[in-house]
């Protein structure tokens, strides 16, 4: 039970902050009533429940979901504009706050949904200059295969971290991360082409276009063994994941027989010797097939692109399937809003998918509403997000990647955090669950040491300077500056108390200030968004 007693920052050290802040919808019954009831349960009483499951279902969510509203809410997060910033950025900076306040919620979101409307020349130039590997053609990538790790992967990982940290098109980065996991592929030279031309290209575009591009992506077809699947020997791997992970979802209503039949439909979708997409009619099974009730009658064997239309037809069936709309809607809501979206929320986003034929922006407008954000429980940052948010908000300088020895400081932290880019090996992508990542607290703290621990030495680690935090070199001044730069002014009282305690020993000491920033980055406040 003790985990409930001091559940949030309303504990003794903190002045009471009301959870019924104006930005939240009231969710009955009161928090106090919940705690009282649960306390009784732990003591062994049987009978009273905190909230009747039937009531919860009537509210359109799984039992006890309502309780998360209370337990997972940040009472301090009152400003709805900042709630938007937390979810669409990889770390809310002081200049992000300035931008959203200047533009307002709606215009800020509209801009982020149209990345081309945001001038990102500085970041584009930075990436193009520092990391030409990011733009390598497939032919160049293949030529580098023997030195792939040193000369391509390491700098590209670094480029992705820096783009996440320094691009103004933050929502595009968040969506790129989302789709990278949705269409996950383990590392390979063509994988980088997929990341650029399939994932980034369509991250805020049309979902159907992304599926169609992915189906022709050599990296995907190699990774899921589609290239070896022929009428003489069918491999079901890609067929299964195309349905289970990419479109209709594991409960999308298909059977093992459907997987096998779809694998037959897909025979012939392969690559050539340069690992470019190629359809080979001589590999294709022209026999009769039925997939999820869609009939493909037997046809005479032919050449050219004969038979290729079958998979294209079935792809449209999958893209337009209501289960796909719900699957994508649910995942987007989990990514941006909450782990247990309600049926009402899912239906609304799925309706936007159906109405627009899979327009991702249209779905995001329904996901990122004031109502949804106001009721969104705090979410644990995944390690990439956590690390990048520290780079963004602590004002560190990130020197260019230069050689292998320079790899450790930035990308090496992601390895230690078990979230290295392109390193998840199975097709489902890195998990987005708090309990998966929560065990890595020491690793997270140590990553913060590597972000703010290097005082000005040029090289592999980011370079930190305490000076920007000391414009007003008093305890209150430094705490206020940390609050402004790292927390949008909504730092919890308990963190403020702790930093005050640390700084008041000597607020003009550079190392005390550096340590205060480290503690702020390690704090529970900074783990969530």
């Amino acid at each position, binding site marked *: 039970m003790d*985990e409930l007693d*001091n*559940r*949030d*920052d309303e*504990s003794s*050290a*903190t002045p009471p902050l009301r959870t019924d802040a104006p930005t939240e919808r009231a969710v009955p019954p009161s928090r106090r009533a919940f705690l009282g009831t*649960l306390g009784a*349960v*732990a003591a062994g009483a*049987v*009978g*009273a*429940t*905190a909230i009747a499951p039937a009531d919860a279902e009537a509210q359109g969510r*799984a*039992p*006890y979901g309502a*309780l*998360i509203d209370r*337990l*997972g809410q940040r009472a301090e997060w009152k400003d709805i504009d900042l709630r938007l910033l937390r979810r669409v950025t990889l770390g809310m900076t002081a200049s992000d706050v300035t931008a959203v306040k200047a533009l307002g919620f709606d215009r800020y979101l509209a801009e982020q949904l149209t990345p081309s409307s945001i001038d990102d020349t500085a970041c584009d130039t930075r990436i193009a200059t520092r990391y030409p590997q990011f733009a390598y053609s497939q032919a160049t990538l293949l030529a580098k295969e023997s030195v792939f790790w040193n000369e391509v992967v390491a700098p590209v990982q670094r480029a992705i971290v820096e783009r996440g940290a320094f691009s103004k098109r933050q929502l595009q980065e968040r969506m790129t991360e989302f789709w990278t996991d949705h269409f996950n592929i383990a590392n390979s030279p063509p994988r980088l082409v997929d990341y650029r031309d399939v994932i980034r290209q369509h991250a805020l575009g049309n979902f159907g276009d992304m599926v169609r591009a992915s189906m022709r992506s050599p990296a995907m077809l190699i990774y899921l*063994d589609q290239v070896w699947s022929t009428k003489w020997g069918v491999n079901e791997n890609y067929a299964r994941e195309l349905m289970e*992970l990419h479109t209709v979802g*594991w*409960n999308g209503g298909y059977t093992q027989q459907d997987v096998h039949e779809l694998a037959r439909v897909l025979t012939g979708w392969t690559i050539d010797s340069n690992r470019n997409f190629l359809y080979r009619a001589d590999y294709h099974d022209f026999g009769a097939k039925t997939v999820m009730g869609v009939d493909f009658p037997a046809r005479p064997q032919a050449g050219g692109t004969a038979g290729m239309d079958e998979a294209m037809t079935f792809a449209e069936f999958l893209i337009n399937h209501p289960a796909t709309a719900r699957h994508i809607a649910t995942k987007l809501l*989990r990514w941006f809003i909450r*782990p*247990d979206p309600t049926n009402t929320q899912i239906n609304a986003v799925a309706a936007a998918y159906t109405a627009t034929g899979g327009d991702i922006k249209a779905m995001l407008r329904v996901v990122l509403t004031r109502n949804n954000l106001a009721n969104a429980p705090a979410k*644990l940052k995944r390690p990439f997000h956590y690390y990048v948010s520290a780079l963004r908000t602590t004002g560190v300088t990130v020197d260019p990647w230069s050689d292998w020895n320079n790899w450790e400081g930035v990308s090496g932290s992601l*390895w230690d955090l*078990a979230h*290295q880019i392109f390193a998840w090996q*199975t*097709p489902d992508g890195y*998990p987005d*669950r*708090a*309990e*998966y990542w*929560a*065990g890595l*607290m*020491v*690793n997270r*703290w*140590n990553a913060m*040491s590597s972000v703010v*621990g290097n005082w000005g030495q040029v090289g592999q680690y980011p370079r930190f300077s305490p000076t920007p935090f000391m414009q007003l070199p008093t305890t209150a001044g430094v705490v206020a500056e940390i609050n402004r730069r790292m927390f949008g002014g909504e730092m919890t009282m*308990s*963190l403020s108390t*702790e930093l005050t305690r*640390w700084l008041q020993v000597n607020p003009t000491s550079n190392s005390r200030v550096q340590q205060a920033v*480290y*503690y702020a980055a*390690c*704090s*529970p406040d900074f*783990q969530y968004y």
Partner: protein
Amino acid sequence: MTDPHDECGCQEYRELSRRGFVTAGLNVAALALPSGMPGWLPEVRWAQSANSSRDVIVSIFMRGGADGLSLVAPFGDAAYYSGRPTIAIPRPDAASQQRGIALDNFFMLPQGMAGLRPAYLANQLLIVHATGQSATNSRSHFEAERYLEAGKPADYGIATGWLARHLLTSAPLKPTAPLRGISLGWGGTRLTLTGAPKTLPIPQPENYRHYAPDDSVLDRMFAGGWAPVRDSAKDALRTVNLLKAIGFSQYVPANGAVYPQTDFGKGLRALAAIIKGDAGLEAAHLDIGGWDTHANQGPTSGTMHTLMQDFSNSLGAFWADVMQGAGSHNVTVVVFSEFGRNARENGSQGTDHGRASVAFFMGQGIAGGRVMAQWPGLQRAQLEDGQDLRVTIDHRDLLAEIVKYRLGNPNLTTIFPGYVPVERGITTTGAAAPASALPRRRSLLRQGPGA
């Protein structure tokens, strides 16, 4: 209470769901209620708690698809030699220095595995051959590893490991222990232990630390906030102090055991110190990689020979140090690989991805000193797809028996969902335990193979 595929990422949700489940009519008084209990678990019966004699389990994964036909070679099957003209282990009665060490009149260990012989002779090492995953024939490393570690094949909805679910359905051995499970090695918790309560990924226990100038600041900051981060942070801080208190550098292994100076050897050595420290550790997982021997396999003197020496000498040292003699601790070791390799060698003196392999079980409660096998044979017609050793015993049969009899946990339907395990008699305590603790081995060893 809900579908195990529920992707809810919220620990609070689960804790609360579980409470909802409790209030729905079970006898609460009969249950301990550890936190971290997933809400979807059906009808859990708690495993024996505190003061029980259940074992500490050490799970070892040989990553890469270890070649069971080299690790424990079937010299009694003529097709073994015809299929592997350049990489077979010489028969135990051969003149070669590289000849095998007979285990019975059919199987032998290569010289690289000699480090495991003492445990075998003490009847505390059981080898199970032609075992693996019966429900999937995936030859993808990552899929096969994932299915084995999850304890359920072909299901990406299962996000926790089988050993994690054991801990989730067991009361802690020591209620105050900060560290019930440890996942050794870099790169985060292995799936086997993902989702387990009070379980941390610790690359090197002797170097586990943070850099906070004053850890009481972290301690106070994480007194509040939400599970699971709050709990994990508190456990991590206590674990850092716990491990600091264990003198790893001064640790002297018992019985003259010498651990190799390898990652695997050092990991087992650190683990021995933690187990003997009696800190309440219940489960450990560690990997030994490098078994993907597509070319120049070298099981008699090359790459695989060296790797097997590391494996067997490290594990042999752990056995001598921790599991043998008067002061021994109750420990069970289980060793698996994701799959075996082709029965016949390829054109590069190596072997490609196959199906069945071997598994090893070590402990005082293991009915060891023998090779358990329903040998399917290596003739082409006997092989799966004409190329691979068939899986005759599902790995879950073996793990379930360990869980039930050595870890005292009856919740097998939670730990291995959708599977009804068959008891194979691999423990001395199980219902199917062999009548005699001493199988055929001794007389056969005296006779020698082919005698």
